[in-house]
């Protein structure tokens, strides 16, 4: 089954990947290891998961303002998520991606989704993000 959603673009770009869905916010500094792409916040539901190449779906960032630096370094090293989908604007994550674009011409697309669309996403959904904020969702076979 394929569906379409529209998000508000914080950082434009196109990307594809499988969804990694978190119901809780994450601080990228202290929570994401840019050398390995692992979620290292041991209190977080996604602890131990690798976000590299995934579309990371989380309500917002939190905590450290060094989150931008962790995301920037992850983009430089190629360990960052393929895209980030949020429920609310997160300037710290957007900034990491914008600085990566300015410095390296590479960025992670970041969108803010409407609430019902955000909550409809499931772990493992195949997502395609377009530059204009369009999002195509293909759910794996549903029973």
């Amino acid at each position, binding site marked *: 089954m394929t569906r379409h959603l529209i998000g508000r673009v*914080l*950082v434009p770009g196109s990307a594809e990947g499988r969804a990694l869905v978190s119901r809780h*916010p994450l*601080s990228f*500094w*202290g*929570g994401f290891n*840019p050398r390995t792409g692992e979620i*290292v*916040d*041991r*209190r977080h539901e996604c602890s131990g998961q690798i976000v590299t190449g995934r579309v990371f779906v989380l*309500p*917002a*960032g*939190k*905590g*450290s*303002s*060094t*989150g*931008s*630096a*962790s995301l*920037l*370094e992850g*983009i*430089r090293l190629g360990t960052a998520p393929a895209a980030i989908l949020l429920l*609310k*604007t997160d*300037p*710290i994550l*957007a*900034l*990491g991606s*914008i*600085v*990566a674009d*300015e*410095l390296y011409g590479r960025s992670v697309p970041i969108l803010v989704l409407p609430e019902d669309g955000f909550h409809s996403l499931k772990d493992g959904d195949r997502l395609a993000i377009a530059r204009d904020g369009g999002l195509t969702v293909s759910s794996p076979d549903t029973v």
Partner: protein
Amino acid sequence: MTIRLTDRDRQMLDGRSGEGTRLAMSIIVRMAEVCGAEELLDVTQAHIDGCGFLSDASLEFAETLASGGARVSIPSTLNMGPLDLQNWRAFGVPEDFAARAIRQARAYTDMGCIPTWTCAPYQGYLTPRFGQQIAWGESNAVVYANSVLGARTERYGDYIDICAAITGRVPRQGLHLKENRRGQLLVRLVDFGLGRLREETFWPAFGHFLGVAAATDRIPVIEGLPPDATDDQLKALGAAAASSGAVALFHAVGLTPEAPTAADAFQGGRPEETIEVRSGDLDAAAADLSTADEGASLDVVLLGCPHFSFAEFRQLAEQVRLAPGKSRCQFIVITSTQAHALLERSGLPAPLTDFGVRITLDTCMFHTPMVAPGTRVVMTNSGKCAYYAPGELGVKVAFGSLADCVRSAVEGRVRREGRR
């Protein structure tokens, strides 16, 4: 959406003020679009967080700005750096890390930043005024500046902070505007006796609770804090709340400047939600901050997250004076050169050194490789340190009071009062 820019903004954005300034202004304008701001506003002070974390990207960013001729246009203090600039060799920091950290530090000082190197700038040099528009990075400094001082800043991340310092401009939005500083969540302390409020662990444990309860960034209004709370207690509260949550501003009725009354804090509106906090909630929060078992063999005590103040050194000296022996584990205190200068003139350093305290300046346990490899169990009185240590240092952590930290150091095992 287009942002309304002044002629001077355009001059910076067009590159007429140099390439470094152009890069800074481009990032400010793109961030204004992200935030939905329609124009920029002037800020008159900055605190730079981006100087603290060392990666190839962070070094490249700083050197790109500095070599592009960018200079700060407003007084700009620096957060802790990735190195104790004087004593790094004594902490076993690798040479290549140090060389790159020194290059990064130089890029920021070359741009005209003030080398304060502290994450507690509000206890040192250039404390902002009530109502002053500022651009501060470092989550604990942001929450302190907004809440305790009543200055106005957004939660600026690494990199936009130096861009704001260079351009003197930020997006006109968020906590810079009075209407966005209105309380949203009422947090009422109910069955707390004065004794509990006097306990040192109350502040970080309550901060940890508050960060989770506020769920991302709702502005909490707290009723029931004692009116004689100290700067250090509010520092501990804010730092913990900005770690477990995204709290950038809290109001405490009768204590913080925008909350003489609850009605002031809510700006005449009503709370979206009311939460009642009982002492059991704080026991749970304190327990959540510990991952090490009682009695576990202790490798290192880490204090000074945020940087230890002179008053905190005095409290530590008192605990050390009462201690029945010396520390059997590493005992590290992190502070600023400003607090350290006072310490040096006080007569306290000798007993602290004698106990086994090692003081490190300018840096952070999470940003410099100073905790020895193989370290398994860390103890701290900081909610922020306890929150981040398991993920950042790969250790187990015990959270306790300063007295617990000193007692445990003497025994070489985690020993907290009232626990078995």
